[in-house]
């Protein structure tokens, strides 16, 4: 190993890859084969955490940061004056294996700038994965980036070796894409996605008949959207997310607050604050859609194209729909319980179990873990004390804000003070 050379490349190519927020290693249960190396853990494992508190689970690098494109939001863009580097295929294989053997990582997340053309690049990503699986007998987690515009044949092959594949949409609207990534066409993103989705469906069906059908991308596909780069609304972002969940069976959509990397009139200036609170609200909305039975138009629509920044989206929805409340926790069905602000899905399950034995009162609910400071205005339970005043939405919101300490409260108040 030429240590100094590798070190330099790693620094450049890890730095360029860090803006991809996904580091998940979950969703695959690949077993260790023939006394080989590694397996995938269904739940995923975080081996460390970055100083910004994100999970480090995979070796996340670019194969190269040479790129023929010039997407405005990307550090790797052609016109950016940065140091360039490229790994050899064997170098990535060796790094992955050596990190893995030391229990630093769950596997590899390999992405790349586009050099020469899409297929040429994709071919090399696939070659790394193939080498790991076939020559090193490696059964750990592999996440490959699908290069926009890559051919169906290559995407097919990629799924045979990778656990997860992802194409980052990055810009949620087609008009934004035209503005910020003029070299890329929307179809370049969707074509590889569609191919992978179809193969996943086909393999699943075959598996039902022939048990020994090999795995094809067992952890599915994901995508990422940048938030706050192109003036898009929350509605634009979330409608687009729903579209990808539905039509491409995405496992996950990630939302990444734009970290300014360019002095470009089209984008927020370098040094502007990363919209972390907004990012957080989008994730909360994503959860409401996937696990709480909400439909997107209930939360975001023509009248409400932006999420409320001072309260979470469920509370915001409830405040707009006070006619559904109060809900009786001792009789309401599961779907309705899930809509009470301050009650998470875990609490819903506990409530359903516990109320078989006895009627629940405030004390029980507190022990179960319900956030009463929010929930109390929206429910009744086995107690004579409940909110009887006919409060309007603004009042309730005001009272809740007084008693809450959200994790972004600080950021929120500094943002507020900017406007004072």
């Amino acid at each position, binding site marked *: *190993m030429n*240590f100094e050379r*590798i*070190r330099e490349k*790693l*620094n450049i190519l*890890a*730095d360029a*890859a*860090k*803006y991809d927020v996904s580091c998940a290693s979950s969703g695959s249960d690949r*077993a*260790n084969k023939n*006394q*080989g*190396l*590694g*397996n995938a853990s269904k739940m995923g*494992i*975080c*081996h*460390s*955490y*970055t*100083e*910004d*508190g*994100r*999970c*480090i689970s995979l*070796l*996340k690098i670019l194969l190269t940061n040479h790129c023929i494109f010039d997407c405005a939001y990307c550090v790797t863009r052609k016109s950016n004056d940065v140091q360039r580097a490229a790994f050899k295929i064997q170098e990535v294989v060796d*790094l992955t294996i*050596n*990190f893995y*053997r*030391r*229990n*630093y990582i769950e596997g590899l997340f390999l992405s790349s700038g586009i050099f020469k053309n899409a297929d040429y690049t994709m071919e090399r990503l696939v070659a790394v994965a193939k080498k790991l699986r076939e020559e090193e*007998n490696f059964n750990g987690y592999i996440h490959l980036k699908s290069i926009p515009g890559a051919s169906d044949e290559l995407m097919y092959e990629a799924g045979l070796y990778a656990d997860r594949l992802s194409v980052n949409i990055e810009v949620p609207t087609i008009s934004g894409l035209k503005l910020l990534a003029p070299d890329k066409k929307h179809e370049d993103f969707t074509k590889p996605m569609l191919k992978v989705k179809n193969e996943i469906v086909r393999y699943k069906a075959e598996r039902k008949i022939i048990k020994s059908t090999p795995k094809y991308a067992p952890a599915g596909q994901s995508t990422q959207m940048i938030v706050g780069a192109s003036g898009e609304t929350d509605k634009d972002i979330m409608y687009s997310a729903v579209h990808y969940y539905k039509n491409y069976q995405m496992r996950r959509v990630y939302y990444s*607050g734009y*970290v300014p990397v360019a002095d470009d009139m089209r984008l927020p200036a370098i040094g502007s*604050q*990363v919209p*972390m609170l907004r990012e957080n609200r989008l994730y909360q909305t994503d959860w409401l859609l996937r696990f709480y039975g909400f439909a997107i138009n209930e939360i975001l629509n023509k009248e409400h194209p932006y999420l409320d920044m001072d309260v979470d989206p469920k509370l915001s929805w409830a405040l707009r729909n006070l006619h559904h409340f109060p809900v009786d926790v001792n009789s309401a069905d599961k779907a309705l319980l899930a809509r009470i602000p301050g009650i998470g899905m875990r609490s819903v399950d506990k409530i359903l179990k516990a109320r078989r034995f006895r009627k629940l009162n405030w004390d029980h609910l507190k022990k179960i873990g319900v956030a009463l400071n929010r929930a109390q205005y929206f429910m009744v339970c086995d107690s004579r004390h409940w909110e009887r005043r006919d409060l309007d939405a603004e009042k309730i919101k005001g009272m809740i804000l007084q008693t809450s300490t959200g994790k972004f409260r600080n950021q929120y108040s500094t943002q507020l003070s900017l406007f004072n």
Partner: protein
Amino acid sequence: MKPSKTLIYDGSFNGFLTAVFVAFDEKINVTDIQKNGQGQNGLFSETETIFTHVEKAKRVWNGIRNKSHNAIANVYFAFLSETEGVELMLYTYIQKLMATTLGKQMDYSDGIVLYIDQLAKKVGREKHRMEAFVRFQLTKDDIYFANIEPDFDVLPLISKHFRNRYADQQWLIYDVKRKYGIYYNLDHVEMVSLNLKEIHFNKIHKSDAFLSEEYDYQTLWNDYFKSTGIKSRINPKLHTQHVPKRYWKYLSEKKEAV
């Protein structure tokens, strides 16, 4: 009524289960169950020394498991917490468990049941942490070696995970606090008791037990750790919540911060 007795066992889990067996079998009124050599406190009651008997232990194990899979895991995990007095609590827990009718959940409003459950959860968390935080260093004899210093005695719990994952390399995970390790010899895992004089932290000062290449990889990993963070999002509170400081000295990426 039978006289009260304190049972003394050898400190092993099988020893403890044997003690439970004897207590049930002889209908002993148990005042305490203690490890031997642990400053016995039998002043006010008679003591009985229990000889570990695998068959008896197995019968208790199976008895608990037949009642509930969750309970047997709870008992084992809570035992490994090494909390003072946990044996007597577990004994009471097992008594309560045996008194439940089949298929019925234990009552989680009961203090002891709740306590054992929480204790087991804590040990479970430590198990997951160790699966994540073990950092192997490759020695000159081709063994991947790691030190750990877990709050609880979790080596028996993590053995299977590492066995399944690292099936083609020799490895040794050594518990610095409890002075024993688990060693995988490419065939099976065995317990080894060692008394290492020199504790090999992932320290700035290097040991000649390792290849120089080993330190190169640590440097690469530390570099990687640094370059993957995004400075404009830095959040030290969240960071230490995920990686508590007491683990830092064994993590090469954090050694400079110690």
